[in-house]
């Protein structure tokens, strides 16, 4: 790869890592002007930056505020690159259907996960809050996602996660989808109890797990 190309891709990466809202659009334009394919600007530039942001979050150097701003920087950059993505191959990382289970109305965590999944290249379908099991089943049937995400904050709603899993089993769809659960009171133990495949301890952990699953599915591990 040319030095100039690498330099620009690194600048894109660094805009994300440094939360540089002021310059991201300029650097994205620079990438286009330099002839860098838009999808590479996304996957080898900005997405790399989001990976580093995720690592900084895990290391407790960055916090939720930085995740949100990094997501905004990525969105700004993508807005410049998007017209050039038409006709180019930007393979989605995977498809995720996600919702807060019936009886619970908390969605801040879910919405943060969605932002990060989108930034990581996933296609997300948000079913909202207070979602009954039937609606999750219908969404899995119609959308054929790779992953189903169930969110709950209230302890009283954890059994509802189990109801969703059972409903998928009854519909013959359980083996078609990986299930990840999350929420402030959701522990590893509860994830096992409800029959999920994994529990996300926070938003970044959730995205990492989803990435891992998709890589396994595509034999890229």
């Amino acid at each position: 790869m040319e030095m100039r190309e690498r330099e620009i891709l690194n600048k894109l990466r660094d805009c994300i890592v440094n939360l540089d809202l002021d310059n991201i659009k300029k650097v994205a334009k620079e990438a286009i002007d330099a002839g860098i394919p838009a999808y590479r600007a996304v996957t080898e530039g900005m997405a790399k930056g989001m990976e580093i942001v995720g690592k900084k979050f895990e290391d407790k150097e960055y916090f939720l505020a930085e995740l949100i701003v990094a997501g905004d920087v990525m969105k700004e950059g993508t807005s410049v690159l998007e017209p050039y993505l038409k006709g180019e191959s930007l393979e989605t990382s995977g498809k995720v259907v996600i919702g807060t289970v019936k009886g619970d109305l908390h969605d801040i965590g879910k919405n943060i996960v969605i932002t990060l999944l989108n930034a990581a290249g996933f296609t997300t379908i948000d079913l909202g809050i207070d979602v009954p099991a039937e609606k999750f089943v219908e969404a899995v049937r119609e959308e054929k996602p790779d992953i189903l995400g169930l969110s709950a904050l209230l302890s009283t709603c954890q059994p509802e996660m189990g109801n969703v899993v059972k409903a998928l089993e009854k519909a013959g769809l359980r083996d078609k989808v990986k299930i990840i659960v999350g929420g402030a009171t959701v522990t590893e133990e509860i994830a096992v109890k409800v029959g999920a495949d994994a529990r996300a301890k926070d938003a970044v952990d959730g995205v990492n797990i989803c990435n891992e699953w998709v890589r396994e599915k595509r034999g890229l591990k």
Partner: protein
Amino acid sequence: MNARERVLCTLNMEEPDLVPWYSTVDPRIFGFYSASLGSTYAQDATQARMDPESDSFARHLRVQEAIIKMLDLDFMNIFVLFDPNHNVMIDEEHYVNEWGRLHTTKLIGGISDAYVDGYLTTPEKYREFRKTKPTPVTDWRMKTVRETKKIAEANDLFLLGGAGSIVEVVMEAVGISNFCRHLYTNPAFIDEIIRDSALWTLEVGKAMADEGVDGVVIYDDYAFHSGPIYSVKHFRKHVLPWVKRVVGELRKRGLHVFQHACGDIRPLMEGIIEAGYEAIEPLEITAGVTIPEMKEKWGDRITLIGNVSLNTLVLGTPEETAKETEECIRAGAPSGGYMLGASHGIYFGCKPENVLAMASARKKFGKYPL
């Protein structure tokens, strides 16, 4: 000792006769009210519908008194964070409250009047809204304090008023994501809204002091279970100066000042103690906050409250609840400085037998000398 003396002794880092118990308990757990009467775990929605000088509010206070006596709780809480008389309906199912938070009236999972999102999504909208914001010291607020105080005095309870919030509620009013963005794009706006919120809370706190409450609690969720929402650097720069001012001025008025802060607040504990808070609750165990660690690191400088898991109270057994209660007491109570409580408000969904098990375990394991 009576309840009030017990709490004061514990706040003074001395050993009382019995570990005090600080919890808010949804009366529906014990069959008071029907399940269809929506209530947040802090009961403010229930109370909010009532005129403090009405018969229905008097009955509501008697229900609270009955719960307190049944469980032998030591606090009478005054829930006045949101004055319902200043709610403005924006459609059939949503209203904006006096702080600018968007709420739904829909009953979901036994909870009504729940927060949905921020309504004051831009600085312009915020400033326009503030022109209509009422004085914090409203009739509803003060009448509620006075009526609740009568019950506290009759039962020698520690009277704790909810004075307000310095950052959490206004953050929710502008929207949490927007707040995070402004930290980077418009920090002057962050300072503006925190200043307004702090001064509001200070006014309510002073008015409560004048009414003779024993203490106030300030509600500020700085963290999620994964850690603080923003960095320690941002906390120290934008939030802590105002926290110090408000807590300092209220303490000068003779009030004991409690911090309510959910999630993993450990990275912020030095700042919270520096601010002058005397006690912190609820200490969420599912956020990785444990009594042994809190006691070791900060237990000699701030009274710890809480930590019995809501997961256990909701999904566990009386035996498991009793065991956890014992563990919290054994870890936190030696030398004083600990009050029993759950990892958040004991809400509708907690099993009554588990709450009663907590009460029994407290009596069994929480008598001094331990």
